[in-house]
């Protein structure tokens, strides 16, 4: 117990001091990363007030409690302002679960290994791109800056590997909720990510001949019928100053449509509130944004464990509640994260961006975001993007990767445009219309040709 040694506000004061100094790494009582590297309990890096919600709230909230409008004020400074408003005014509820102290549960195992293996090997080149320090070549996998101390380091961790798998395919079921609380749109779609560099698995860090590419990413819609087959392909260059190539395909016309490369602030299809720019809180090449600043280090509530419903729902779907029709929000479990980086950035490379800045809350342990808000150019809050992550374990049901480790991935996302009060929420499902299933490795297939070329997207989602 550290409580005897340190007064109640010690942890928060220490985090504030670190923010002001601007160079310190994660951890308060001890540096965090040696603990993670040794597989030790990460809570040892923090005083109790930052690892126990009960202590933090002086007994007002404890593990197992449900945060509602009645008690949300006790955790107001642990939520982003949009989440707070959702609970306070729209009937949202959040269940508090016990905190994760084993950092390995916050990673896909191969990615954690690469992060530890390659720690200290990344640097920025003269252009601001991330390179491997000794070779000057693209990054070799894992978080390039596991203990990010600057804004650029933090965004690099988010940008270089979105889903933390070399290849992943997510079967997604989406509901778009109108201000009335009714479902305005419902889509099934599939999202594929395939890293060309910074790979952590067998075969080395680069796809042969694709060292200039960061990733290929495609999305295709499978339901409803009127949208089925509509697909998009994003090709990201490794050079983070360059805009990705974006093409779309309409099956009825058998035509590929090229989109303006900088059209990042429009939805892909009708009704959803998500822009390309919003993906993974790092939806644009990192050097097309700028003025990255860590504005704060603080404790925060995040959905980072116990959020998978595979044991209770065969298709991994989850209950909903709140809003005018009782279906605006997903049921969510959150826990106290002892330290998050609060990062802000501005879309300096988009002279027509309607967004003024974004604010990202990043768990310092796995450098993954737990909340993300955009502001308009007036400085008013616009949208929130709140993900849930966890190991895919639900009771006795476990989803494992090919190496036998529990899958770690995202489970659900809620994107709330609070200005027009439209909510898009989606789950990573086991399977969606068209028979597409979520998967986290290539299974020995040529997934590039199958899912991630112009020809491929013309085949997907149809029939």
């Amino acid at each position, binding site marked *: 117990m550290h409580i005897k040694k340190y007064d109640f506000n010690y942890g928060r004061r220490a985090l504030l001091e670190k923010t002001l100094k601007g160079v310190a790494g994660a951890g308060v009582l001890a540096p965090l990363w040696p603990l993670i590297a040794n597989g030790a309990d990460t809570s040892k890096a923090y005083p109790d007030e930052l690892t126990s919600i009960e202590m933090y709230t002086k007994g007002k909230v404890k593990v197992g409690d449900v945060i509602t409008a009645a008690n949300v004020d006790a955790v107001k400074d642990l939520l982003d302002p949009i989440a707070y408003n959702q609970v306070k005014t729209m009937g949202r509820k959040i269940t508090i679960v016990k905190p994760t102290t084993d950092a390995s549960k916050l990673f896909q195992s191969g990615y954690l290994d690469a992060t530890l293996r390659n720690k200290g090997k990344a640097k920025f080149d003269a252009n601001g791109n991330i390179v491997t320090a000794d070779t000057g070549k693209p990054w070799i996998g894992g978080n390039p800056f596991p203990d990010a101390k600057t804004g650029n380091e933090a965004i690099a961790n988010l940008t270089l590997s979105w889903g933390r798998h070399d290849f992943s395919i997510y079967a997604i079921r989406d509901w778009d909720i109108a201000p009335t609380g009714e479902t*305005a749109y419902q889509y099934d779609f599939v999202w594929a990510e395939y890293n060309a560099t910074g790979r952590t698995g067998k075969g080395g860090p680069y796809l042969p001949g694709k060292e200039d590419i960061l990733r290929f990413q495609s999305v295709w819609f499978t339901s409803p019928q009127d*949208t089925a087959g509509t697909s998009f392909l994003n090709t990201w260059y490794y050079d983070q100053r360059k805009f990705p190539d974006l093409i779309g395909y309409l099956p*009825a016309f058998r035509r590929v*449509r*090229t989109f303006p490369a900088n*059209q990042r602030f429009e939805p892909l299809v009708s009704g959803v509130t998500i822009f390309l720019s919003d993906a993974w809180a790092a939806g644009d090449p990192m050097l097309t944004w700028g003025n990255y600043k860590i504005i704060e280090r603080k404790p925060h509530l995040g959905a980072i464990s116990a959020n998978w419903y595979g044991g209770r729902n065969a298709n991994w779907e989850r209950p909903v509640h709140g809003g005018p029709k009782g279906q605006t929000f997903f049921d969510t479990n959150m826990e106290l994260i002892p330290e998050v980086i609060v990062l802000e950035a501005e879309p300096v490379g988009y002279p027509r961006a309607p967004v003024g800045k974004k604010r990202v809350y990043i768990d310092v342990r796995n450098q993954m975001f737990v909340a993300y808000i955009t502001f308009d150019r007036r400085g008013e809050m616009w949208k929130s993007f709140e993900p849930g992550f966890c190991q895919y374990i639900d009771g006795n049901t476990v989803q494992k990767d090919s190496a036998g480790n529990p899958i770690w991935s995202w489970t659900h996302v809620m994107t709330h445009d609070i200005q027009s009060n439209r909510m898009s929420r989606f789950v990573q499902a086991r399977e969606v219309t068209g028979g597409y299933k979520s998967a986290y490795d290539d299974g020995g297939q040529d997934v590039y040709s199958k899912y991630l070329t112009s020809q491929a997207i013309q085949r997907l989602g149809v029939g």
Partner: protein
Amino acid sequence: MRYKIAKWVMQHRGLSTGFFVIVTLFFAAGLRNVELKTIFSDLLPKDDPFVQVFKDHPNFGSPLTVTIMVKRRGGDIYNTETLAKVWKMTRDIDLAPGVDHDQILSIATEKARYAEATPDGIDMRPLMGDHVPSTQEEVDAFKSNVEKSPNARNFLVSADGSSTLINATFIEQRLDYGEAFKYVHDLVMKNQDAHHRVYLAGQPALTGWVYEYESEMFKIFAVTLGALILALALYMRNVVGVVTPIVTSLTAAIWGFGFVGWLKSPIEPLLMIVPLLLVARSFSHCVQFTERYYEIYSHVGDRVKAAEITMGVMMAPSVLGIFTDIVGIFLIAIAPIPAMERFALFCGFWAVWLIPTGVLLISLLLAALPAPKNVDRLVGKGPQSLFMRAFKAVLVFIASLTFGKRARVTTVLVACLAVFSTYEALRIKIGNPTEGSNLLWDDSEFNTAVRQINRNFPGINTLEVVFEAKNQRDPNRVDHQADTVMTMLALQNLIESAPNPPRATLSLGDYLMEGNRLFAGGDPRWMPLDPRNDAVNAAASAVLMGSSPKAFSNIIDFEQQNGTVTLWYKDNKQDTVDAALAEARKAVAAVGTDHPSFLIRLGTGTIALQQAMNNVVERFHWVILLCLNVVILLGCSFAYRSFVAGLILLIPVNLSTLILGASMHLMGIGLDINSLMVASIGVGVGIDYGIYLLSRICEEYHAHNHDWGRTITASLTTTGKAIMFTASIMFIGILPWYFLSSLKFMADMGLLLVLIMLINMVLALVVLPLLVYLIKPRFVARKDLLVGEGVDLSMYASVDDDVAGSPAVAGAYK
């Protein structure tokens, strides 16, 4: 009965005062809930089919969109300076409070695109790149891009290239009209320069202007109220005579506002001229009451007794006068316009409150306040001024026109006037079409902007034909169905090929055809859509790919279940409106209104809503007048115990309405919602003059030994003064609105009210005594009239001085 009430009140002055204090405190507590707010949709008749379509589909017709037109003087927009201005304004309007960042459209936004078919597919690019064209090559390239974009050519750049539009749509629940308007208007002002004119239109701008001018309204209200008090002070020249009307009117006002405060019913500021009329009405009533009190006080010499007698004497005529006001105001609510219904409730009850305050409270005040020293002058004792003598001479002359030989001539003239007025009034047209908004003056900044935009673009005179899904949750979105889109296109074809076609038409079908062409390779021969669900749906998916349905919110709803065919017309003159509606009705009938998955509803947009207002005026103008006549006839017949009395009172006010209508027709003004209200108030409030005069005639008839000539002369020279004062008070209260208000709606109402009250006054002084003389009704001779103001003060006088000889006091106090 009335005297018993008067006696009881005076015997229980403490209790009565306590009652007024408690009730006033109760209503004062409701004042905190009072909300002055223009709810524009509440200005529309709720039972009109067009209005119902508007309310069911409020997003069609772009009610939340501001339109800014940037016009290059003496050139076109294709130069760096103008394009930079448009770019900057587009970025700046994104900073407007409450704007929907997804719904800003100009040639500088990414949403304004051109498309090219390439060997691989379709390449869609913004008209303008990531920066303002800075070289001639870039400007030329931009111009070429505009040429490739049919939507930009039609809706964003004028045909002569001199003007371009910036549209910004606001989010309703975040929109503070005043704040947004201030921001956008400042932006417009800042960007005017030697080379550019910038115009601002759109419903939020109109609302902003109205709010801006409504704040000015409070100043005018203060000015006119001040003028009323000054007139009162000049006339009365004593504290009691000024304080009493003010306290009485203020109490009624607190009750009036507090009542709607408790009901939480917002007050429509555009109609605030009517409460001022009520204040003026209350003032003039108080003055007459007070003058009568002084008259009685000068005889009886006891404040309490004088107050009691005055209350008893004045109660019935006061109640009758206020009763007609109440009827006139309440009957406005017959027209099913929510704002007028709420206003009738507010003002009608305010008028009701004039009864307890103007009869009981005023008596309590007079009994409590010290008597002024200038009572004798006030009751007409002592030498009269030259003005008063001249004034009296005029009244004597007017009186002389109404009896004896001169009456024949007057009768002929009045009859001719009546026939002519009736003929002209019946020819009056419905509606006052204004290019822009008839709430504002023709040369207002807003209406000027509307005219300019109409001149350079399809404009804002739209008729929306709405396609409404039968199942709002149809899984096969109705806007994506072949029947919907093909019917839209068929409707457009029919209307475009009919006589007097609109300037432009637009529906989702147009976008789909363009999408079809592009995605099929770019050849114009691919524009027509295959009338199959999958083909139409494919085109819809193509058009909406990579964008939000909000980008098409002017023609489809967010869920893509409902849509509209927009028809733009060159103006909103009644002939255009009639022709547009007739052709639209024909076309809708030809394509059929009831389809398997949708209904076609005609319609909304400015053309339809203008017609809705005209319809309500047409339906209710004469109905309201008829109801008013019936109710007032019954009330007055009861009060005078004579049906003839009711007719004698109603003839002048109806003739006034006809004369006003004839004057409006001769001046080219049509009937509108203003004239509807004015006609109702004109009869209800205007009849007061007649009541004063007729009551006086009844009294003087006995005092002048049944000599009609002397009776009429005496009545006009006494009560005529009161009528003149009342008319002056009304003038002071209302006429300044015509000169001071930037809101044409209020100014027009002020002018019409002044005119009708003026005509009412003249006719009350001429036609009413003429009718009495011609008819020589028997009720005049009766002494048991409810409205009799006579009283024998000798019973109360401590020192009787010529009381019996006073014509004003000869009567019955039983």
